[in-house]
């Protein structure tokens, strides 16, 4: 029942790779932003501005984002043309291009839960760790991070998921190149539009079961540590 075509497999691979890279990059980028937003000493106005900016991709329809990114990253755009002048390729219709798009697109989904988690911690854990001789980085990794585990899990799942579910941006910017930019959402859409409902069903159902299993495992693991609280 679940024999998938090579195209299907390629799309699965691209999708997972995209979601994984996006999530990893986002955790690295979003963590300091979220921390700064939650605890920064900058004046409130600046913080609010940055926070609103970070949240912008939230409210921009993916097609808008895709549209502007295409212009930006394509050969005529500032980024794309710079790359071309450096002898590199522009980024439209490349994996890197949709990766950049995904990162921007999902940024707020990673920042917001982290910011909430950091804000919830309050200052006390930092103060404790500091009084015990832990410097900034040290206490971040040994106290803040484990204590905001819940926030990181929400941020990671939302970012991962939001990337999996990305469609509009990739439709605009990706070009459905098998093995490079043809992600599952595009492929399933394609199957459905081609009235190849059997393929669409097969892929969707496979995805559904896979997703459910992954989520179940993540949550089951997480629940085991669940009661740890300040």
């Amino acid at each position, binding site marked *: 029942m679940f024999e998938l075509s090579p195209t299907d497999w390629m799309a699965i691979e691209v999708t997972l790779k995209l979601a994984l890279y996006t999530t990893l990059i986002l955790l690295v980028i979003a963590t300091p932003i979220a921390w700064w937003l939650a605890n920064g000493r900058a004046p409130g106005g600046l913080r609010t501005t940055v926070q609103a900016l970070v949240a912008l991709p939230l409210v921009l329809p993916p097609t808008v984002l895709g549209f502007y990114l295409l212009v930006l990253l394509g050969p005529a755009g500032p980024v794309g043309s710079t790359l071309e002048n450096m002898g590199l390729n522009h980024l439209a219709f490349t994996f890197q291009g949709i990766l950049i798009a995904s990162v921007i697109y999902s940024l707020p989904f990673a920042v917001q839960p982290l910011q909430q988690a950091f804000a919830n911690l309050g200052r*006390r*854990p930092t*103060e*404790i*760790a*500091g*009084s*015990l*001789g*832990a*410097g900034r980085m*040290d*206490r971040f990794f*040994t*106290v803040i991070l*484990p*204590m905001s*585990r819940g926030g990181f899990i929400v941020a990671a799942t939302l970012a991962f998921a939001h990337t999996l579910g990305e469609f509009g941006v990739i439709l605009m910017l990706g070009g459905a190149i098998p093995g490079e930019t043809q992600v599952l959402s595009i492929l399933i859409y394609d199957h459905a539009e081609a009235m190849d409902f059997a393929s669409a069903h097969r892929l969707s159902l496979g995805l559904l079961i896979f997703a459910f299993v992954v989520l179940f495992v993540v949550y089951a693991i997480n629940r085991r540590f669940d*009661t*740890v*609280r*300040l």
Partner: protein
Amino acid sequence: MSQSVSNGLRIQARLERSGFALDVDTTIPLEGVTALFGRSGCGKTTLLRIIAGLEHPPGAEVHFGDTAWQSGKTFVPLHRRRVGLVFQESTLLPHLSVRGNLLYGYKRTPESMRRLHLDEVADLLGITELLERRADQLSGGQRQRVALGRALLISPDLLLLDEPLNALDTQTKREIMPFLARLSDRTGIPTLLVTHAPEEVERLAHRVAFMHDGQLERLEPLRDALARADSPLFREEGAVSVLQGELGPPDEHDLRPFGPPEARYRVPTTPGSTKGAGHQARLRIDARDVSIALSPPEDISILNIIPVTIEALDEAPGHHGPARILATCRQDDGQPLMAELTQLSTKRLALQPGTRAHALVKSVAFLD
């Protein structure tokens, strides 16, 4: 100025909050235990936070010996100050076990600086059996002990303890206090201890800092603090009088005369007392140990019967049992003497300001 600074913890800070202003300029000697004593809300925790660097009011100066912790643009962050901190609400790191909490700072202390170790501290605090517990599976007192142990295990240069024995039962306290006392004596770690318990002050402190309404009103050796009748330390035990006078040689009953003839006490030589004759001495008399008689009773077991004039009669600060009266009397040598009486006897004797009477002093103690 700086020469006096080099051995002390100098704090000069102002901090304003709605309805509260802290204004401190003091130097606390960096040896032994300094008790920080004061009413709820007077700013003790805030002062500790300033010393630790958790609050940094602009313009404040904090010098630890020769090291500027905060001064102008200089600001040494908390984790470089090597300060052992026990917060008033003993918060543990919830994602670590008890052992993890205890060792968190220990691991971050250079090996050469470690003067205290896990086993010893855990044992003394009675938490050895809890080591593998999760931090949120402890009782209040257990949490507090872990927090204390954690602070000790960084072998700090300065201990800031904010009511660290608060949630502990007397017996546990009694086990921990000598340890803390020895710690300060042996390792010389200077300690600032916030406490509301006079007993902890008496047992642990070398000096007492009295705080009131955001100001450090007085910083004095424990001895002096105990000697003052109005010391807030004694609010606990009721009123106390402290008399100043000359101590004579023991008589044939091994009793020593104290004070001028018109207010002469005969004081038994307590075993262990080493005070020589002819010296100025101070006598501490609990108001509860003083009774009043209108005429000097005869053939009574009480040795010391001192003529006095009653000056004031006030309600004694809350005490269980029937309402009590605090009588302020003046001895004929001019020194005050407090007596705590029942309402009943005050009435029966018709005591009033101005009444001449005799104070029957049951028991006295030297402050040496």
